[in-house]
């Protein structure tokens, strides 16, 4: 089998053009889905019998928590591909992921904390999920700080790729250890997000929102990736026709 299709796809001008035409689709689709999910979650879905309307925070908290993990895995896979097969485009993709992932992680932390105030009575509880998110935020910040500390983008790419791979091996261990730690310390009576006994009518907006966030991620990565491609191109003669 020939690899030419792959090399063509991974060639900077080609990728740049494809991403440019994909981005608007991602953008509009995500806007539509997020608006639909918001309406469904705030208006149509019934209130929780225990948590009342406060439960609606879940519709933004859970998808952003999901996106924070998802983005880290995408970033690490891209970094690994870039490191092993020396593909610049993959490194560029990893670089594009980091700020988006970090912002979703921050959002998950903030909304989790806001949700916790009425439920637990304090703004912060050392709950397993929140603690994991906090550590994930540290991982993102470390990744971005390392990347920023190199002047040469090529070295930044490879150094941060090593870190992302070490990090992604560590994420499950961190997750497990934090869960283990929190079950030892916390009484089981505390309400958790984990298995809310909610019916389908309450789940639909959740899935809609997750899908909307995924598409939004697609849009943002496309935009940033185009920028990262240009940064790595030392003579982008094709830019004139592309732009």
């Amino acid at each position, binding site marked *: 089998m020939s690899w030419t299709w792959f090399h063509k796809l991974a060639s900077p001008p080609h990728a740049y053009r494809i991403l440019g035409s994909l981005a608007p689709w991602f953008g509009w689709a995500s806007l539509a889905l997020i608006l639909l999910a918001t309406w469904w979650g705030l208006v149509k879905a019934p209130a929780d019998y225990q948590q009342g309307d406060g439960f609606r925070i879940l519709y933004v908290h859970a998808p952003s928590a999901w996106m924070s993990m998802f983005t880290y895995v995408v970033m690490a896979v891209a970094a690994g591909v870039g490191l092993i097969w020396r593909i610049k485009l993959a490194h560029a993709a990893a670089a594009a992921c980091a700020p988006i992932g970090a912002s979703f992680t921050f959002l998950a932390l903030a909304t989790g904390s806001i949700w916790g105030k009425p439920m637990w009575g304090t703004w912060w509880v050392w709950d397993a999920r929140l603690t994991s998110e906090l550590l994930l935020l540290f991982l993102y910040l470390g990744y971005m700080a390392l990347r920023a500390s190199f*002047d*040469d983008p*090529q070295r930044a790419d490879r150094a941060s790729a090593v870190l992302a791979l070490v990090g992604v091996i560590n994420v499950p261990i961190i997750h497990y250890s934090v869960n283990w730690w929190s079950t030892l310390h916390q009484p089981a009576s505390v309400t958790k997000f984990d298995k809310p006994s909610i019916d389908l009518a309450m789940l639909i907006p959740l899935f809609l929102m997750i899908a909307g966030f995924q598409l939004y991620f697609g849009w943002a990565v496309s935009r940033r990736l185009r920028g990262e491609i240009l940064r790595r191109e*030392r003579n982008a003669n094709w830019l004139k026709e592309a732009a």
Partner: protein
Amino acid sequence: MVVDGALFEAREINAWRGDRHILRDVSFSVRPGEFLKVTGPNGVGKTTLLRVICGLLPAEGGELLWRGKSIRGRRDEFNFELGHLGHLNSLKGDLTARENLKFLAGLRTTLTAQTIDATLDRVGILSRGDLPARSLSAGQKRRLALARLLLADAALWILDEPVTNLDTAGIRLVEELIVDHLEHGGLAIAAAHQRLLDDAPCLRRLELEP
């Protein structure tokens, strides 16, 4: 297609430093007994070329061949036949001259006290063998680095400004060492500003242009 009799060959090497395309399709080959002197003004990419050969800098495009085969995927094997003398002497000031050789040259080949002493004698610093490298003069440090190169027992020498800090006697020593190395079937590639074996029959030049 391998150039006739060449042990080492570089084909269309390209390298970038930051935004600068510093090496453009550099190709050359070296036969046993040949000394390739890389010349050119400052910043033309002499060090870059030598570091690309050593694998200390990534090349973008191009191929290196050793004994007729691409070294891709065989770096460790190739490295073992390669002796490198860079800008830095790779010495530890807190260790004596003997210890420096033992701990660094010893990583490649098994050394005995006799071989270390013989080599120190060859580069003319045997009497300084037990002094910490910190207290050696700049020229003596360079000689110690040369001793490490000799002990590496490599077929291909990569020398980056080998005669820096050396006096006339030191330069003559480097010339003798290179000629001796070539007579035993070795190869050498060097970047040098100064005169170095300029009239010797083994010399070939590679002029890099900006």
